[in-house]
């Protein structure tokens, strides 16, 4: 690699050619403030707070956008630089409705932090904030243009990471704003509700639609039994939202906190993740049997359906592939349907007086819960979806000292789970869990990977694939003898899009595909703590695998509560009850809403 040497504040530094001044400065311990810059996104260079002085150049240069060059002399803390940065921050404050005392992002707002750092005067310039009505059309995402500082991180996220482009920069000059196709409300465009834009918004312009007050109201109502379920990835995210290090595993503390908040039953989405594996694994084997033995024209590859962002994406962009989706509901919705039927019956609770809440790393789950078909229990299956961040808010509101909270266990039933369910929380996890079970159903043996860790489907590569040879099968699966199961895993909708194009063009041949809408899977979900970065997501994913390997049971079919529910309620995978409660259908949507 070619190197260049430059000086930053008279300190010599040698970096790889192509390194930006911003990153070169990091190497000598100089932090340069940024707003539009984000590690996950392409360079924009438009907010200009990262400007630095280059000797011999009249204008300041944007350090995030300019590569270091041989002999460059950079100064990051001159009067000219400080004044320019302060003025730029003050300009941003003038187009930002500074409601810092009531803003949802207060305390975790990059603009607020910078304004404080530079002691910027928020009232120096005339208020020019765009006071368009706040867009609350979507059940998942709230868009408030008055807080927007046009850094376009959301636009880049939507286009680059998600391949959706629901948000775009429109108009020019003083009318420049982030908007949608024809300025339609968020609910009426191709938005997948993935919330990745929220995770990267430096201010409160994009936030989740929060249901904290509704949930408090349910808890406060003595007539109501409030059931709460917690998704796999929340246990490795919640601690971070409460000031702990990324990757802290806080399962027991979270359960204790939920009980302290007053939820009547604290249960685990991981239970229905295990259930998903049984249902979806069986569905896959059935589809393979239909294809190979009965020579039926079944849709293959089969694709996972756990991620509601992905579901809305495929409904909009590839409606012709909807038959390829597993008909399994997501674990959240399976849970909701069972809570108000199976659980209510077992516990003698009137489902009409039950409120079902889920804690999710996800904003798309809010949309999913609101889908009209998600009422197979006879009621709305999941009443409220809270993100990891909303739960953290409630815990703070309740004055709970989270760090010192003694750990507690989930209530029973529907609180038991396996390591296979925990790994649903990261990319590749559903695939790994499915393979652990499906391989064993077919061969009677454990998957041939050390410690059950199916490494080829792990990691942060955008699209992963693996092949598994199936040999010495049980008699009833003879048709699979010698077959090679070909699987793929994609995370981030831009990668999903790439994979779908390959499938449509016939370039890719797989039997089973796992797709997660968010980069990194649910650990990087739109409801997870802010900020996010590749490094943070890696730590959360590592924590997921630690949680998996530390559990005594690591295969979904070993979950005793799963065995129990089939014995006394569902009777068999894909059976009558399953079809009613655990499976669903999809809605083709227009690709340009």
């Amino acid at each position, binding site marked *: 690699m070619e190197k260049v040497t430059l000086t930053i504040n008279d300190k010599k530094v040698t970096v790889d050619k192509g390194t930006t001044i911003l990153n070169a400065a990091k190497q000598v311990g100089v932090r340069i403030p940024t707003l539009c810059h984000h590690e996950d996104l392409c*360079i924009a*260079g*438009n*907010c*200009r*707070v990262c*400007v630095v002085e280059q000797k011999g150049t*009249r*204008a*300041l240069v*944007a350090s995030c*956008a*300019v*590569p270091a060059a041989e002999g460059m002399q950079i100064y990051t803390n001159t009067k*000219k630089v400080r*004044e*320019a940065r302060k*003025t*730029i921050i003050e*300009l*941003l404050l*003038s*187009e930002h409705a500074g409601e810092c005392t009531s803003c949802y992002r207060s305390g975790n707002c990059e603009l607020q932090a910078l304004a404080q750092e530079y002691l910027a005067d928020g009232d*120096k*310039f*005339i208020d*020019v904030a765009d006071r368009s009505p706040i867009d609350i059309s979507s059940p998942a995402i709230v868009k408030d243009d008055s807080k927007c*500082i*046009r850094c376009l991180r959301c636009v880049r996220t939507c286009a680059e990471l998600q391949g959706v482009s629901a948000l775009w*920069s429109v*108009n*020019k*000059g*003083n*009318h*420049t704003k982030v908007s949608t196709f024809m300025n339609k409300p968020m609910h009426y465009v191709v938005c997948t509700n993935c919330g990745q834009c929220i995770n990267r918004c430096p201010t409160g312009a994009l936030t989740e639609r929060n249901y904290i007050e509704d949930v408090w109201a349910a808890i406060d109502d003595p007539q109501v039994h409030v059931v709460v379920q917690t998704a796999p990835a929340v246990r490795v995210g919640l601690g971070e939202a409460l000031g702990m290090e990324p990757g802290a595993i806080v399962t027991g503390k979270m359960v204790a906190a939920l009980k302290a908040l007053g939820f009547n039953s604290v249960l685990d989405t991981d239970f229905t993740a295990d259930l998903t594996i049984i249902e979806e694994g069986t569905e896959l084997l059935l589809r393979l049997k239909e294809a190979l033995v009965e020579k039926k024209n079944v849709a293959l590859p089969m694709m996972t359906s756990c991620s509601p962002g992905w579901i809305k994406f495929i409904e909009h962009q590839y409606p012709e592939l909807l038959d390829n989706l597993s008909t399994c509901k997501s674990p959240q919705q399976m849970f909701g349907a069972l809570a108000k039927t199976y659980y209510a019956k077992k516990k003698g609770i009137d489902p009409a007086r039950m409120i079902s809440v889920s804690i999710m790393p996800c904003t798309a789950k809010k949309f999913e819960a609101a889908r009209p078909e998600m009422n197979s229990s006879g009621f709305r299956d999941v009443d409220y979806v809270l993100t990891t961040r909303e739960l953290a808010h409630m815990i703070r509101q309740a004055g709970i000292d989270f760090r010192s909270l003694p750990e507690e266990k989930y209530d029973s039933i529907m609180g038991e789970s396996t390591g296979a369910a925990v790994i649903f929380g990261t990319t590749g996890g559903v695939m790994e869990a499915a393979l652990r079970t499906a391989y064993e159903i077919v061969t009677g043996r454990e998957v041939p990977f050390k410690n059950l860790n199916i490494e080829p489907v792990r990691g942060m590569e955008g699209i992963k694939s693996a092949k598994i040879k199936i040999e010495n099968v049980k008699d009833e699966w003879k048709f699979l003898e010698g077959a090679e199961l070909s699987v793929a895993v994609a995370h981030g909708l831009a990668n999903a899009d790439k994979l779908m194009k390959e499938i449509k063009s016939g370039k890719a041949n797989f039997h089973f595909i796992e797709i997660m809408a968010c980069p990194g899977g649910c650990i990087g979900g739109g409801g997870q703590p802010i900020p996010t970065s590749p490094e943070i997501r890696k730590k959360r994913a590592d924590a997921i695998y630690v949680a998996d390997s530390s559990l005594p049971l690591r295969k979904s079919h070993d979950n005793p509560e799963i065995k129990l529910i089939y014995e006394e309620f569902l009777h068999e995978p894909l059976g009558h009850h399953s079809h009613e409660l655990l499976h669903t259908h999809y809605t083709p949507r227009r690709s340009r809403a």
Partner: protein
Amino acid sequence: MSVSDKNKLLEKMQERVNLIFKDTDCGAILAKGLSMKPDDIINMVTDSGLRGRGGAGFPTGIKWRGAASASGNKKYVICNADEGEPGTFKDRRILDEQSDKVITGMAICAYAVGASEGYIYLRGEYNFLKDKLQSNCDRWNKIFNSKGINFSVNVRSGSGAYVCGEETALIESMEGNRGEPRNKPPFPVGAGYMNEPTVVNNVETLAYVATIIEKGADYFKSIGTKDSMGGKVFSVSGDCSVKGVYELPLGMTIEEFVNIFGDGDTKAVQVGGASGVCVPRKNFATTVIGFEGVPTGGSMMLFNSSRSMYHVLKNFLEFFEEESCGQCTPCRVGCQQLLKGIEAIRAGEKPMSYLDELRKLAATMSVASKCGLGQSVASPFNSITEHFREEICY
């Protein structure tokens, strides 16, 4: 000075420089250019001292050298005909009357830097010229083809955004994207249109290239001054006795200029359009029109004592507020604040001292904006508020 005296003086001035609008044999110029070595052409253009005539004044030879030495699969020459600066209308006349010279300049540039495709990016509002220009391009393309010259030129239409006159925004627009300036580096000569080496030159610059090839660098250098060589086509407007498009040598003082074009009551001249500098009467005699004084893309707006400089400035700021691409903070928000700020001072909602805050803001915009648009707003703002402070405040 009587009108007839003025006309005589003007004729005399124009005799010294009559390159752009004089008909010549462009076929012969092309043949002469192609008989030279590419490197020699670049040396000749460099030696002539020709600087970009769009306003920024970047030395043309250096730009060409950059594109010639850059490596790419394909190279492009783009003629920037997005003449959007308020008060300029000279490229329109050049394209209307002398597009042969422009196309010849493009072909010579292409030959010099190794480009095979050329585009004239025509301002959206000049659509009435499009068919005529395209048919002339087609005619020249046949000539290039018949002579075995690997070059073709076509017209692309802009859509009306001022910022697309900025070369990287122009390229974005040509690629079908939002017209927003790019981060630089890389510069277009290294990675421009379709990420390939691209020369973007103003209409007038390319026309002058043809005349430099025709008459030689020394002839061109003999016009103008040592810092501002050659002629310049001016668009003269405002409170004038004579207005229109005139080719004159660079290096005149504003006083000389006003003596010819003014109405006898000129109080200020806005040199270089809305993004240029305002020169007040007291500085007419000492201000040279050229790179050593006030550079201009050609726009000369004369204001007499009946004009309110507050309204002049407000008009410019309304223009910038709307025409900023909206991408970078200093320009997007800064333009709004400058406009709202002078309105507030005028209305008594802000103290007069707020003007100093605004002048500092303009200075920040000039060093922190992403492109020339935001960087140049300080020129009119700070010159007008410096010389006409009382007109702004009261």
